[in-house]
């Protein structure tokens, strides 16, 4: 097991290098002179030269990349052009907001998706199954910014639930009533995931339920509930876990719209603002952090496969 994890960790190194190269080239893929763009169209040549010097743009590319990589490893992501604060600090305060949002949404979508999928599979081809699958199709097709707006319209403006208060604030003031702040954004983000997981669980479960060993379990006299959970679900989980991992990754990058709608000060907002104000170091930083997190989540998914299916170690 440890060997498996170590090998899998080593395998992520090339991926990480690839990510850094892409992020690094962001700066150089911008048409024109980045220093000029950062300084602004009408900035005097002296100021542009200063920025160029500060960003090290006069060095040869490989030297620049080496410095960039070295800085990342030591946790230095550069300085925000706009606020002059270190990028790491800018991200640091917002990172957990987005991660928390993504984690809660994932928990909600896994919970709802699994239950709906299992019910659908066990009662397949009944009215209940058809209804669940139609609801899931809606959940999947609704753009989440629209869903978010509708939720605000009906629940928040109708004073049922406050739309949002920052997690930080919430933490400071204790939980109390503050769970309500999380509800709407989490529903907004979790709906599509729940729908995908429900559909995946259903098809995966249906496949397993048709297997001979399910019949064997029934012939042993195993209770139907245990047949479903111990024999069927455990075997059906691998594709579901894959989807959960991908969904979580997608959430990290996909909270932009939701954060905007609910005025949440998270990574998504930070990225959008940075792009709008051409704050390239911040853009680089956020893209890098989200990518690293994505790689890490996929690593976790791979390791969980190993727990679900002992045979995976063999290859």
């Amino acid at each position, binding site marked *: 097991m440890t060997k498996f994890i170590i090998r899998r960790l080593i395998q992520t190194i090339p991926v990480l290098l690839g990510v850094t190269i892409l992020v690094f080239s962001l700066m150089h893929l911008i048409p024109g002179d980045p220093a000029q763009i950062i300084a602004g169209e009408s900035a005097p040549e002296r100021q542009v030269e200063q920025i160029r010097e500060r960003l090290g743009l006069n060095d040869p590319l490989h030297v620049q990349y080496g410095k960039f990589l070295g800085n990342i490893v030591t946790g230095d992501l550069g300085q925000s052009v706009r606020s002059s604060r270190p990028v790491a600090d800018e991200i640091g305060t917002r990172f957990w907001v987005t991660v928390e949002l993504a984690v809660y949404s994932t928990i909600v979508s896994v919970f709802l998706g699994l239950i709906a999928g299992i019910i659908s599979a066990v009662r397949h*081809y009944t009215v209940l199954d058809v209804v669940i699958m139609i609801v899931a199709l809606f959940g999947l097709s609704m753009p989440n910014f629209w869903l978010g707006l509708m939720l605000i319209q009906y629940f928040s403006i109708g004073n049922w639930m406050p739309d949002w208060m920052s997690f930080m604030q919430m933490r400071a003031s204790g939980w109390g009533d503050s769970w309500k702040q999380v509800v709407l954004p989490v529903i907004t983000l979790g709906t599509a995931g729940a729908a995908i997981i429900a559909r995946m669980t259903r098809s995966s479960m249906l496949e397993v339920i048709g297997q001979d*060993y399910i019949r064997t379990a029934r*012939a042993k*006299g195993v209770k139907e509930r245990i047949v479903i959970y111990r024999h069927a679900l455990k*075997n059906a989980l691998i594709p579901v876990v894959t989807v959960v991992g991908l969904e979580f990754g997608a959430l990290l990058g996909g909270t932009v719209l939701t954060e905007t709608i609910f005025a949440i000060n998270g990574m998504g907002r930070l990225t959008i603002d940075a792009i709008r104000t051409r704050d390239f170091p911040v853009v680089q930083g956020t893209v890098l952090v989200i990518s690293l997190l994505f790689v890490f989540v996929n690593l976790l998914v791979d390791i969980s496969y190993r727990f*679900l299916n002992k045979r995976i170690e063999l290859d």
Partner: protein
Amino acid sequence: MAKKELLKVENLKQYFPIKGGFLGRTVNYVKAVDDISFTVYEGETVSIVGESGCGKSTTGRAILRLDEPTEGVVSFEGTDLTTLSRSEMRRKRKDLQIIFQDPYASINPRQIVSAVIEEAMHIQNAVPKEKRRERIEELLQTVGLQPYQADRYPHEFSGGQRQRIGIARALSVNPKLIICDEAVSALDVSIQAQVLNLLEELQDEFGLTYLFISHDLGVVRHISDRIIVMYLGKIMEISDKKSLFENPQHPYTKALLSAIPVPDPDKKKERIMLKGDVPSPIDPPTGCRFHTRCPYATEKCVTDVPELRTLPHMKEGHQASCHYIEEIHSGEMQPRDYSEKTKIKA
């Protein structure tokens, strides 16, 4: 001979609905098993043979209520299994076990062997907890595996070994009846023999009763005491092994038996070739199910359903369902257009 009835199947029917149309209504039924009755006595091996799709596996599953039978009575030691509640039936499963055809698909790939076997003992409470490990190792030895293999996963075993695991699992709760649903057909011939011999040894040792479902007449001949021949969901003939092989009465049984290869190149054998395919069980032929392919069929066969019956020239307990057993036996009736096309040199 005072034989004790263990399993009595009466008028068993298994119809599977065919859903169709916009609203998914039932448009028709597959009549997989259509009104069959037979009895299995304690300690014997009864085989059900027939072509693919004749309803033999369905019969086995319907007896165990793995598919709920449409109609009929399945009495096991006097209790009607079809009227038991789900939980009563679960408890009854201790006495009725099944060994499945496919040793690869019928074991949960995520469970180690000891868990596979233990689960049955646990549910049925057949063996106290502290003794289960010991019992698992004992069972593995009984079926010719090693105790140290108990903690391995199914994929670490070969097909024959897996089938032995299936047998050990079935034996773990000390059942009275084991239904072997094509239990050896997925195995190599050499392994088949090993497993069959194992089954016979276990029968002697534990006093088991087998209902053996197979399409392989060679296997059936080896293991059975009595044989049931099925065709399109109906029983064509029931007999003890000897009279069935030496003195088949039903034209279908004769055709079936003529298909057994004889390991003698000089022996000229008349192979009865049946015309056409097995008709669909959705809309089975009227009268005798076999009349569309039977070389003796007459008008009567198209309209009247034949009953299982015994005639004076047949041994006691030997029954066949044909209107013309006597006429065919005496040679009074000859098969039609059997001449050039259908007689091949074997």
